[in-house]
């Protein structure tokens, strides 16, 4: 009797011991190139010079954020080494820098490289080398293809999903609108326009006038004049900050008051609306997924307070009014979360796995209600936006948080 009782007990004990030893084997550290007991090397490519140098501040903000994390003890005891190179917004240079990061600096992953051309250039290489190209800094729709490119993931809402939201809004609120579009003649502008037209579907003929412009043009004033002449009553401004501001100003000058929608990229109060003139921007619509540093309504928000403390302590030159700074903070925070989730398993495989398992993660700077969700078939972390209307000196959010996904 004694022995028969002992046998199952022994079996259970043996199983438990066996199980415990396998889990501790699982809990052993696993590293790929770029991660050690004390350090995680993260690569980054930004345009610090050249036509897109305005976005270089994102890299600076991220560097400051990682400094903060290091000062607070690092991630699971490991310090982050953030290596960021300039590609001048030139694809061949981006390829060179990516290869340098992977082959010479031996980073674990490349985080938040900026620009669709640069990212398109390195995508094949990164996937061939099986190095994560994580949270790319562009809204192009093509970063959400986990089957074809399992090592590439976006972060911000794609341009097409934002355009879809505007299309839905117009179809509902102004179904007989005559839409005019001013768009930048590059992947950003064209992707957006496609999203808009696709979402309007059978009613794509609502778009009665389109004007494209090049970033080399000093001013887009004459395009605006032409669009006014088309007789449209909706003006969709798919523009980067400088040109968005010019458009707002010109519209006021020629006393044209259509329903003015501006892309989220240029919705920053400090970088666009204020220079263009508050009085000219009344009633403009846009959509947002993050809080605006210039907006006093977030002064008491816990998340924004953390952001502002961070700026004070680690990035005193950082301008809270600059949407790019807010962006850099949010995406860096997401990166840190993923690395924390990796624990001691810092293989590239696991990094992608953890990045694809974010559930309702909310960085400090996202709008209340907007959450980051990923899965092995969903490589688009942020898909929700909320529409907002400019009133007085700030944006007023209205409506629900809308998802930009096709199914909605």
């Amino acid at each position: 009797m004694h022995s028969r009782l002992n046998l199952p007990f022994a079996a259970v004990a043996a199983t438990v011991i066996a199980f415990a030893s396998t889990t501790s084997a699982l809990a052993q550290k696993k590293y790929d190139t770029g991660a050690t007991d004390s350090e995680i090397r993260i690569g980054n490519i930004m345009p610090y010079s050249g036509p897109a140098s305005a976005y270089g501040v994102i890299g600076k903000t991220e560097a400051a954020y990682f400094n903060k994390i290091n000062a607070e003890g690092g991630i699971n005891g490991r310090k982050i080494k953030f290596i960021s190179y300039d590609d001048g917004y030139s694809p061949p240079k981006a390829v060179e820098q990516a290869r340098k990061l992977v082959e010479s600096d031996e980073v674990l992953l490349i985080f938040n490289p900026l620009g669709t051309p640069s990212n398109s250039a390195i995508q094949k290489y990164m996937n061939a080398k099986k190095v994560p190209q994580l949270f790319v800094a562009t809204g192009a729709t093509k970063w959400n293809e986990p089957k074809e490119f399992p090592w590439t993931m976006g972060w911000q809402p794609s341009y097409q999903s934002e355009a879809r939201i505007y299309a839905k809004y117009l179809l509902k609120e102004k179904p007989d609108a005559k839409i005019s579009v001013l768009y930048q003649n590059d992947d950003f502008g064209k992707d957006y326009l496609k999203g808009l037209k696709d979402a309007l579907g059978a009613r794509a003929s609502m778009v009665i006038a389109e004007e494209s412009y090049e970033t080399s043009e000093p001013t887009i004033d004459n395009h605006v004049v032409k669009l006014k002449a088309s007789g449209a009553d909706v003006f969709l401004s798919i523009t980067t900050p400088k040109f968005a501001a010019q458009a707002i100003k010109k519209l006021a000058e020629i006393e044209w008051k259509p329903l003015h929608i501006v892309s989220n990229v240029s919705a920053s109060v400090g970088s666009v609306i204020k220079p263009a003139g508050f009085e000219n921007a009344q009633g403009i619509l846009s959509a947002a997924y993050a809080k605006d540093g210039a907006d006093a309504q977030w002064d008491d928000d816990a998340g924004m307070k953390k952001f502002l403390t961070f700026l004070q302590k680690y990035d005193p030159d950082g301008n809270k009014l600059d949407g790019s700074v807010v962006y850099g903070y949010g995406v860096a925070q997401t990166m840190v979360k993923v690395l924390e989730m990796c624990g001691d398993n810092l293989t590239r495989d696991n990094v992608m796995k953890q990045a694809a398992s974010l559930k309702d993660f909310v960085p400090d700077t996202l709008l209340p209600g907007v959450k980051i969700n990923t899965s092995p078939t969903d490589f688009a972390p942020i898909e929700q936006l909320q529409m907002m209307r400019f009133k007085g000196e700030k944006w007023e959010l209205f409506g629900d948080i809308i998802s930009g996904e096709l199914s909605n």
Partner: protein
Amino acid sequence: MELFTNQVLAGIATGAIYACMALALVMIYQAIDHLNFAQGEMAMFSTFVSWQLMQWGVPYWGAFLLTLALSFAGGIVIERLLFKPLAKAPILTNVAGFIALFAIINSVAGLIWDFTIKQYPTPFGSSPFLGSQLISTHQAGMIGVTLLLLIALYVFFRFTRMGLAMRAAASVPESARLVGINTSWMIALGWGMAAAIGSIAGMLIAPVVFLEPNMMGGVLIYGFAAAVLGGLTSPFGAVVGGFLVGIFENLAGTYIPGVGNELKLPIALALIVTVLVVKPAGLFGRPIVKRV
């Protein structure tokens, strides 16, 4: 017809920007026989200086005049320090120097004032001009100032001794030296004046395009084209060239089907090159005389 008039008027408005820049370029060409690539960046830097002065409380016209003086001095300093040593070097080396200057000024401006756009005030207001919604009072003011500058330059070159000395030093340096003209200082003076004119151009352009370190890049290309179209030896040509480029571009964008809008700049440039083939010295430039 109305669309045509509108586009022409809008073209004149943008053309004023190009004309301003072209004047500065012609000025420097008169002095040193080359085009200075960094002229746009110098103008941008001057505009930032004036903006900074205004941020510190200096009223608009005070800042304007102070910047004018600082730019003039700055132009002379740059020439004496950086380009006088290159006077004996080949022309192409000098051009590389212009490129280096461009890189330095752009980078420093970005560091000091960062890349977010800044609003820049205008003394002319922004309401519609004479009721027309296509030209604002600022743009009309811009055209007016450009024309004033043009007249001032014309008078300077044609009727003053200094102007005559500068022209002599640029076109026949040896002979000029023989009659006692200090050609080296004439070049410095040319740089100073070009910098000053450039700063005016910048301060006029900034209210329209918004102030940021990369604001002059596109303007420089158009100014270059306008100056060459008008003839590099003629300030009048530069101004006319500026307006013509603005109008050409708009009409091309409006009337050439399909590609007109996407290829505005290339079409304008192609037109200019065609003009040059017919009139190699530009519309109003003096013909190049080759003496055997």
